[in-house]
């Protein structure tokens, strides 16, 4: 059994603003858990409370049964990347990692290993100030991996990464989870989580909205719709409605069909001799599920406090 992150009635208030409001959840090992919510939902504040950087106003959060702040050294317990800019620009990547490694009694060769792993080995002696955002993300990930910890926390780790970097990070998360680690990744974009997370914790305005496997979450979404362009909308509508689908005419002349998938619509159109110009499955149902759930929970007035 690996390390579990457990939050119980976690609350954080800044003056009159409640950033996190009675949040309870469990993050289990062996899975990539997505931590999803609109900007300002309290994700960063929650992650900081897990790491003991911010003290909860009420409630508790533990990692492997203990508040993180009670541990004298942290890197072997939790590896975290909160914000890739949180390094001193005047230091080289190697010096930055070396200082962290020394503080936790991690051998020097581990620094070279993680630099190699994230692909920064050949620029490790350059000052971080000259790094791109993507390189800084890689450096932050290297720091998180230093202690080979059973728990990994990442706050918006895909920001600033190129498509290749995104694939690499996803592969890394899945590998870490497959090794039995607890991987907790925040994002405000459902599309990012779709191919990354196995399990989701969704919050809005500091409150829990959903905590369930990705598949269940997806099932909550509206049924997938298919956009069809045809030379004879009336005929197609008749055919598809007869099969139980609902068809809606759009302003641009196309039809939005729900209740049948693209393949079946194509077959029916062919069978009835209706010419089809375009068939496109529209929108991610996950994205819609997320938008529906968090509607009214987006908070653009109070930014996530730093």
């Amino acid at each position, binding site marked *: 059994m690996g390390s579990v992150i457990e939050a119980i009635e976690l609350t954080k208030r800044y003056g009159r603003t409640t950033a996190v409001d009675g949040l309870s959840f469990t993050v289990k090992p062996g899975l990539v858990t997505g931590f999803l919510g609109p900007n300002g939902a309290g994700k960063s504040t929650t992650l900081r409370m897990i790491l003991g950087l911010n003290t909860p106003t009420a409630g508790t959060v533990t990692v492997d049964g203990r508040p993180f702040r*009670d*541990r004298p050294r*942290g890197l*072997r317990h939790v590896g975290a990347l909160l914000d890739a800019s949180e390094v001193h620009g005047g230091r080289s990547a190697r010096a930055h990692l070396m*200082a962290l490694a*020394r503080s936790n*009694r991690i051998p020097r060769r581990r620094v070279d290993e993680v630099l190699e792993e994230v692909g920064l080995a050949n620029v490790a002696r350059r000052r971080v100030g000259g790094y791109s955002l993507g390189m800084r993300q890689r450096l932050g990930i290297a720091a998180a991996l230093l202690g080979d910890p059973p728990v990994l926390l990442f706050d918006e780790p895909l920001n600033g990464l190129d498509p290749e970097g995104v694939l690499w990070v996803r592969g890394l998360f899945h590998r870490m989870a497959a090794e039995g680690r607890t991987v907790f990744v925040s994002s405000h974009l459902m599309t990012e989580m779709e191919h990354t997370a196995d399990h989701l914790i969704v919050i809005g305005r500091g409150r829990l909205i959903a905590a369930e496997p990705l598949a269940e979450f997806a099932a909550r979404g509206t049924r997938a719709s298919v956009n069809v362009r045809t030379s004879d909308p009336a005929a197609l509508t008749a055919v598809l409605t007869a099969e139980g689908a609902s068809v809606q005419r759009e302003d641009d002349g196309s039809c939005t069909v729900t209740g049948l998938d693209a393949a079946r619509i194509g077959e029916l159109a062919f069978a009835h001799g209706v010419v089809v110009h375009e068939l496109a499955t529209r929108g991610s149902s996950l994205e819609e599920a997320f938008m529906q759930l968090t509607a009214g929970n987006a908070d653009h007035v109070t930014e996530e406090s730093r």
Partner: protein
Amino acid sequence: MTVTEPKARFRDLLAAEWTKLWSLRSTYGVLVTGALVVLGICGNSARSNSDLIDNSGDPASQAAFLDPFHAAFVPDAFLILVILAGSVGAIAVFGEYTSGLIRTTFAAVPARRAVVAAKVTVVAAVMTVFGALVAGASFGLTQAIYAEHGIGRSIGAPGALRAVAASALLAPVCALVGMALGALVRNAAGSVVGVVGVLALLPNLFRGETYRWVKEIGNAMPQSAWEALVRNPAKPPFVPDKYPVTLTEGWIVLVAWPLAAALLAMWVVHRRDV
């Protein structure tokens, strides 16, 4: 996954802070520049006084009139050292806050007071060595310049070692005060203004001997303690102070300030969210 972990040691934190300090180019730049500025001012003072003696109608009495300690410890030169040392301390702390590195640091080492203690120890040690080198070099340089007029003193002269030691200590004392200010204010401009305000301006608000309490507050400032400790016992002031800083008081001030500063820094860093 079970975590096997070696025992947490304070010296690992010292090593980490040491690495952090010396992996920034600014550390070398600030210290070397500071040393050269102080030595330049003090050396120039001794040279100018030498010229004054040479050009005087009565070189012997002019030389006897001069206090050879003064050029070694020119107050303005050491005021620059005070501000520089305070800034070095402040940068060591606010540098982590302004970059956000502090969150990385405390996620790696949740024992925050130990981190601050390690940082204080490393900065104090480095600044003590720096202060000793600058003060020793300034004394040696100026007294060597004076030697041609026969008024240069050796380190064995009464009060000489004390003056060098107090000047050496001034650097770590001010650096620690700077660290406390950095921890309180947590941004660059505010911390440096704090350093100048507390270490350079504050003592000037409590001068004059009309009111004893005013003078006594002034006496408790590091700068006043330093002035008392670098005074040449062979050259007492023409008008004695009514409420002077005694030598014992001077040493107490130079120990109490950094201790209080270190405790304050540990306390605020431990208590606040980062």
